[in-house]
């Protein structure tokens, strides 16, 4: 099953994906599927999106040769600089594409969920740019962990609705956004923030994020003259990783690694490592790997990074794992803090805690000496300063 033919017409990536959604949402999902099949190669739509990505987002983002960190780790390391995209993370690629698509569909209102706040900020930004009202659901816990992003969203004109159910994090925010959408589906588009959810969302978001890998592969070959041997990205829901991997899946001699949040331990509830420690299950409309108990109840999760604090993962990652097309590992909160500081000190780049997991994993020297490594630096770390300051002061979460 190649990327071009993945998923099948039922939204299946092998056994995974599908559409486990309430009946009331099916007409909108059908409409979205048809619209995307038509528009994704439509020159008018692509042209409009490409112009915005260039003029507004600042694409292409560069790749940076991390020379001092390479020396430290014994690798030849390049970074794809999604932290330099407008709003500070890769999330804008997807948000802008979906809000543009929603306008084409005649939708008059946008809703989104957010964990770290980056997707919420990106969606609020796209809505401000394109003139649509925006409501962002955010777990109450995350509104505290990522308070600056709440301010940003409100400045951009979005309404931020704190969600108080359950652990008050990303999973509950998605639940609440789905409930809103079930009631408002005729006039509203739900801009889901990762490669999760019922078909066609995992495909739609992948297609909008693959610009990361498409750019990076060309840039890397221009600069280095060949492909990297290893491509590494962090995985929560998995959109930055899929965006990076899609250009490289199945390329001989290129190995793909996804780094999940290992939290503070391997016991259920202390991490977010769905692919490395979970089992197949259904959450938010798709079958994928899932952190669940013996009865199939979705469990609470933990990560120092709000953006990875999610018990599920995109179904295409489940497929890539089972087919051994990508390898998934995990890095702890402590690794992420180490990676965060290391990148800041050696390269002058303060990363988001999410991709800091990748740097933290690389610190353990898991790859052969001298390996050519391309890392997706999915976002910048301004939003995490309070969390990191508290953690470094000994108040580790």
């Amino acid at each position, binding site marked *: 099953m190649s990327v071009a033919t993945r998923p099948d017409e039922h939204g299946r990536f092998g056994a995974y994906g599908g559409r486990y959604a309430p009946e009331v949402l099916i007409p909108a999902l059908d409409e979205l599927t048809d619209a995307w099949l038509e528009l994704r190669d439509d020159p008018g739509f692509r042209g409009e999106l490409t112009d915005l990505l260039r003029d507004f987002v600042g694409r292409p983002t560069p790749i940076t040769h991390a020379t001092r960190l390479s020396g430290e780790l014994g690798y030849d390391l390049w970074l794809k600089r999604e932290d330099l995209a407008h709003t500070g993370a890769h999330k804008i690629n997807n948000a802008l594409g979906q809000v543009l698509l929603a306008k084409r569909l005649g939708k008059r209102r946008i809703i989104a969920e957010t964990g770290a706040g980056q997707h919420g900020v990106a969606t609020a930004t796209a809505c401000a740019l394109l003139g649509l009202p925006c409501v962002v659901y955010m777990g109450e816990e995350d509104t505290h962990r990522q308070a600056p992003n709440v301010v940003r969203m409100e400045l951009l004109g979005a309404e931020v609705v704190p969600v108080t159910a359950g652990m008050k994090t990303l999973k509950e925010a998605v639940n609440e956004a789905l409930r809103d959408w*079930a009631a408002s589906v005729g006039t509203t588009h739900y801009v889901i923030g990762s490669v999760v959810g019922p078909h066609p969302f995992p495909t739609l978001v992948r297609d909008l994020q693959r610009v990361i890998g498409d750019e990076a592969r060309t840039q890397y070959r221009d600069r280095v003259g060949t492909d990297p041997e290893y491509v590494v990205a962090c995985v929560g829901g998995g959109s930055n990783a899929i965006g990076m991997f899609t250009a490289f899946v199945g390329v001989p001699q290129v190995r793909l690694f996804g780094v999940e949040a290992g939290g503070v331990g391997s016991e259920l509830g202390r991490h977010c490592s769905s692919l490395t420690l979970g089992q197949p299950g259904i959450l938010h409309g798709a079958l994928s790997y899932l952190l669940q108990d013996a009865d199939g109840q979705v469990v609470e999760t933990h990560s120092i990074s709000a953006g990875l604090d999610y018990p599920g993962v995109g179904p295409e990652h489940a497929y890539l794992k089972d087919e051994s097309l990508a390898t998934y590992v995990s890095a702890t909160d402590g690794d992420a803090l180490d990676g965060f500081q290391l990148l800041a000190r050696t390269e002058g780049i303060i990363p988001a805690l999410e991709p800091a997991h990748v740097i933290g994993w690389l610190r353990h020297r898991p790859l052969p000496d001298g390996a050519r490594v391309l890392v997706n630096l999915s976002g910048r770390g301004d939003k995490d300063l309070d969390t990191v300051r508290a953690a470094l002061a000994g108040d580790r979460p």
Partner: protein
Amino acid sequence: MSALEATLRSVRDRGAKSFVPYVTGGYPGVDGELLRSLAASGADAIEVGIPHSDPIMDGGVIQEASRVALQRGTRLGGVLAAIADAAIEIPVAVMTYANIVHHRGYEAFCDDLARSGIDGAIIPDLPVDEAERFVALGAARGIDVVLLAAPGTTAQRYRAIASASHGFVYCVATYGVTGARDQLSVTARDVVTAVRPYTDLPLLVGVGIATPEQARAASAFADGVIVGSALMAPLVAGDPKAAMQLAEAFRSQIV
């Protein structure tokens, strides 16, 4: 024909309307005695929720009931055992979410229901496109897998749902999730009217039916009414007596 479908058909055949109350399994006070009281109040069948951590089709009342039920350690096996132990005469369908069934295994889940004397299953996030195997496994064991029809879809899809559903067709009255509404949505009649040509199964309306008056209005065009959040609200407020009085009021108006 399963007990659930036979019962709902016989109600219709005698010119009456079915009243199907919903309660969240494992919630304090939702026990054999309550199920027997609901049966005695004239319910034609009972829907029992198996609580799930992520009830995306449920509004605030059932979310809260599910949270409390799970917090006190409610398990799938416990809910099924409580239904079996209640030994009520009328049919029981369980309502839960796809992952509970998937995790248990579709076949094992159907076997569990059959062993517990349960007659049907309603899974709101298992639409017709994903339900084929589960419907067949249920049918082979006398378990009706009830499919939901919702507002705003195509005739082709209403036909597919009506053809694949067993027991009855659950006609979702309105856009949105479970929970009380100020008035009966106009879409309730649209859904029933759209499904009717494609099946002889009873058509029951549910989601958002808040008052006995709304239930009466729905009875005018549907074969029965499902009432969930409105009955759970007094239970969640700690007043089971009020819940039973309300059940009786609903029963008297569903005619």
